């Protein structure tokens, strides 16, 4: 991530200044190489196989079926022609050795094959035998034992080669992968909200009336990344959940369906916002598998969406309408989208904003036992109880009591983590506060009430670094509970920092 950020470092400035003009176009991006094309073909070539090429010949059948149609036809015709030429020449050799060729039209002489007296006639005889036409003008006589043996051999070999080539032809014609041509995916994927949750959606449609049995859809996100241990994973694939756990990935595909991936904590797009979408580089590969109803063979349709084909804040136009006695699908609207108002924040920022303004942090067991801390802790416990009671007395209808409940029950760990983060070292980039300087850059151009608080936070962070020596001291001011108003959550967050600052600064001044 750090490498990518450094690479796109200058892009940040460019995007910020051009933000007023276009949000969708990234001016510095050049055309990037896709892993999978829109039609499903994969841009991977296998090279430098070395001694492994013999494997392709061992599996001759699949090799033949995998070839393009023109190569198949060429092989087909060549096999027949060359084999026939070779065999025909053998017939001609027999005739030559026997001396039939000199007794062309001699009615008393019985040649091996009647009426074969030169190469063209030998060839014709061969074709007639091989294709089982058998006109009858040229026929084999019984005076020719070597001819009979060759005849047997030719019949058998001819049948085998025939069956093999025709089998290849049939398999190639009835290939289930052709069925994927009549499975359509939308041109773009969209991100918008559904029932309050941010979702990534795309559309899939079946153009035929015959069904796809056991249709199943799955998605992969292809994104290069570097592990903390330093290993660079190029084109790393991770799974995108489109309903695997609930069975919603088994589709009933009769009319176009919108497949929806809900962006939550487990999603790889958890920290994707409208701005980061312009600077990230990923590819979503969609795989739809199912059994062709007519042949019973499994087929797979693929497509991919790069980051510039993902539209933030759009929705698909509906394609279904009700007619007399049936539902009509209008495929001219299949790829169309329209804009809807969508908050540009990522799900992560959204959740952070919701959980940040908790004014009291819960008493954490990991605290030190210094007297000052204990005192503060006791005080905070009382305060917690008061706020919790206040919350319970509140009529359930506003969001705040639920926030408190969340905070008291499950939010404890979050808060503890946040407290730790605020006091942690600056160098840890993996945590959310590591993004803070960048957030500040982004927010600098947009006036918002949070900006001032965030700026204060940044300055506070700078001041925090030398303070990480004693965690007990750190926790003290954070636990200093002041009855803050809960109606302006963000401001209270900033306000809390301000209240906590004076004792800390006082301490700093005292130390120095």
């Amino acid at each position, binding site marked *: 991530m750090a490498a990518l950020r450094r690479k796109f470092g200058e892009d940040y400035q460019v995007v910020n200044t051009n933000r007023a003009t276009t949000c969708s176009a990234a001016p510095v991006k050049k055309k990037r190489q896709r892993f999978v094309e829109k039609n499903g073909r994969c841009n991977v070539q296998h090279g430098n196989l070395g001694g492994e090429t013999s494997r392709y010949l061992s599996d001759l059948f699949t090799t033949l079926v995998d070839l393009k149609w023109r190569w198949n036809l060429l092989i*087909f*015709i060549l096999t*027949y*022609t060359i084999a026939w030429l070779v065999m025909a020449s053998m017939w001609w050799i027999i005739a030559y050795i026997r001396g039939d060729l000199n007794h062309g039209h001699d009615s008393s002489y019985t040649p091996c094959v009647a009426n074969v007296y030169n190469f*063209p006639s030998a060839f*014709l005889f061969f*074709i*007639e035998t*091989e*294709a*089982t*036409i058998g*006109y*009858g*003008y040229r026929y084999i006589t019984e005076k020719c034992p070597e001819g009979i043996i060759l005849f047997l051999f030719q019949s058998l070999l001819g049948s085998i080669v025939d069956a093999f080539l*025709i089998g290849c*032809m*049939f398999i190639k*014609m009835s*290939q289930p992968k*052709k*069925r994927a*041509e*009549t499975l*359509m995916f939308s041109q773009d994927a969209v991100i*918008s*909200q*559904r*029932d*309050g949750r941010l979702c990534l959606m795309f559309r899939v449609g079946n*153009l*035929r*009336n*015959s*069904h796809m*049995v056991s249709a199943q859809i799955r998605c992969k996100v292809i994104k290069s990344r570097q592990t903390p241990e330093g290993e660079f994973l190029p084109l790393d694939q991770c799974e995108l959940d489109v*309903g695997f756990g609930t*069975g919603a990935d*088994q589709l*009933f595909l*009769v009319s176009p*369906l919108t497949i929806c991936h809900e962006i939550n904590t487990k999603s790889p797009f958890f920290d994707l916002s409208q701005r980061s979408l312009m600077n990230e580089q990923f590819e979503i590969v969609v795989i739809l598998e199912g059994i*062709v*109803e*007519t042949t*019973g063979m499994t087929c797979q349709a693929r497509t991919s969406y790069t980051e510039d084909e993902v539209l933030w804040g759009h929705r698909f*136009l*509906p*394609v279904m*309408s*009700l*007619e007399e*006695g*049936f*539902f*009509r*699908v*209008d*495929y*001219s609207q299949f790829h169309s989208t329209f804009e809807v108002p969508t908050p540009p924040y990522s799900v992560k920022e959204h959740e952070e904003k919701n959980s940040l303004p908790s004014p009291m942090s819960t008493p954490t067991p990991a605290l030190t036992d210094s007297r000052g801390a204990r005192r503060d802790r006791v005080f905070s416990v009382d305060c917690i109880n008061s706020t919790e009671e206040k919350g319970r007395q509140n009529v359930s209808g506003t969001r705040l009591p639920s926030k408190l409940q969340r905070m008291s029950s499950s939010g404890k760990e979050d808060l503890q983590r946040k407290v730790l983060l605020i006091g942690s070292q600056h160098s840890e980039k993996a945590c959310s506060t590591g993004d803070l300087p960048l957030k500040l850059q982004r927010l600098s151009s947009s006036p918002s009430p949070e900006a001032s608080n965030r700026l204060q936070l940044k300055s506070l962070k700078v001041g925090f670094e030398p303070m990480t020596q004693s965690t007990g001291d750190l926790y003290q001011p954070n636990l200093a509970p002041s009855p803050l108003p809960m109606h302006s959550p963000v401001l209270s967050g900033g306000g809390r920092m301000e209240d906590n600052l004076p004792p800390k600064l006082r301490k700093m001044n005292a130390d120095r």
Partner: protein
Amino acid sequence: KSESVAELSPQKQEPPLLSMFRQRYVEKNGRCNVQHGNMRETYRYLTDIFTTLVDLNWRCSLFVFVMAYAVTWLFFGAIWYLIAYCRGDLDHLEDEDWTPCVNNVNGFISAFLFSIETETTIGYGYRVITDQCPVGTILLLLQAILGSMVNAFMVGCMFVKISQPNKRAETLVFSKHAVISLRDDKLCLMFRVGDLRSSHIVGANMRAKLIKSKQTQEGEFIPLDQTDISVGFETGDDRLFLVSPLVISHEIDSRSAFWDMSQAQLEKEDFEIVVILEGMVEATGMTCQARSSYLAEEVLWGHRFSPMMSLAEGFFDVDYGAFHHTFEVNTPSCSARELSLAAARLDAHLYWSISSRLDEEPTLAQQAATHTVNGLFILK
């Protein structure tokens, strides 16, 4: 047209469907009422020509079959005729010393007959190709190869069309109605599925989808939204062993879409349940799919399916006359949610350390229930 669907509020959309005849998404026999229109990319159908041909109905299929053969025969017949014409064979019909390309071809009809005999490899022998005609040899070669290719393709299409696995779905039956009644103190939505043949369906699995239009909080109207109805996905109960008719049951729990549906509400609801049974035909190993659907008015509240199995001498006898029959049973008309709340209230006294009087006198359980309900109110 389609834009207007988005503009129309769902309230305006739904009443016309309810008051008139309600348009089904899937028929009872599994056919889907969807037509694809305004498709611009028709090249896709031609790239996948095999499925296009196999998907045609029998009349069109036979027509294509006949046409494929007839066209190739005529084409090659015309070329043989052309060769004879260009060589001058037609002018030297009575000439004894002239060796034509093909013996006894003296017109278009005989050229056509010769082409048929060659391509179908009958080869009577009256009309024979001579060795004085290299062009004819090449043409013979081409026609033999093409003939076998067209043969293979047509026979393959025919074979695939005959052995289509979706015909197996004709002998898989679903009950006409779905019922809702109590099973083990839980409301369940049930329907029956049966296999009319003695041969098995291998790897049969059942799934159901609820088709109901909905509108999201943000105002997006999703027409005919599909949600999953669990018929045993997590426990593996959706994998059936289908030898005798089975009653498939969907337990209405808190995650179900019918959690808040009571009997009165069922009469006002508008949804469609599509049930899908997939499995492999035992003979061919090809997967088939049988479908059916239940509208809201085909779901009967408070009924149960009549039993159809009886024990005869050495085997179990299944009476398909009773397959669709249901009979009424006593079922509470409240929704599943209300039922679970009532059950929780009745059980609440077990968690209280108050008077054991409640435990000693089960006949007073009703009184106790009202007491506990009041108690809970006070606490809240």
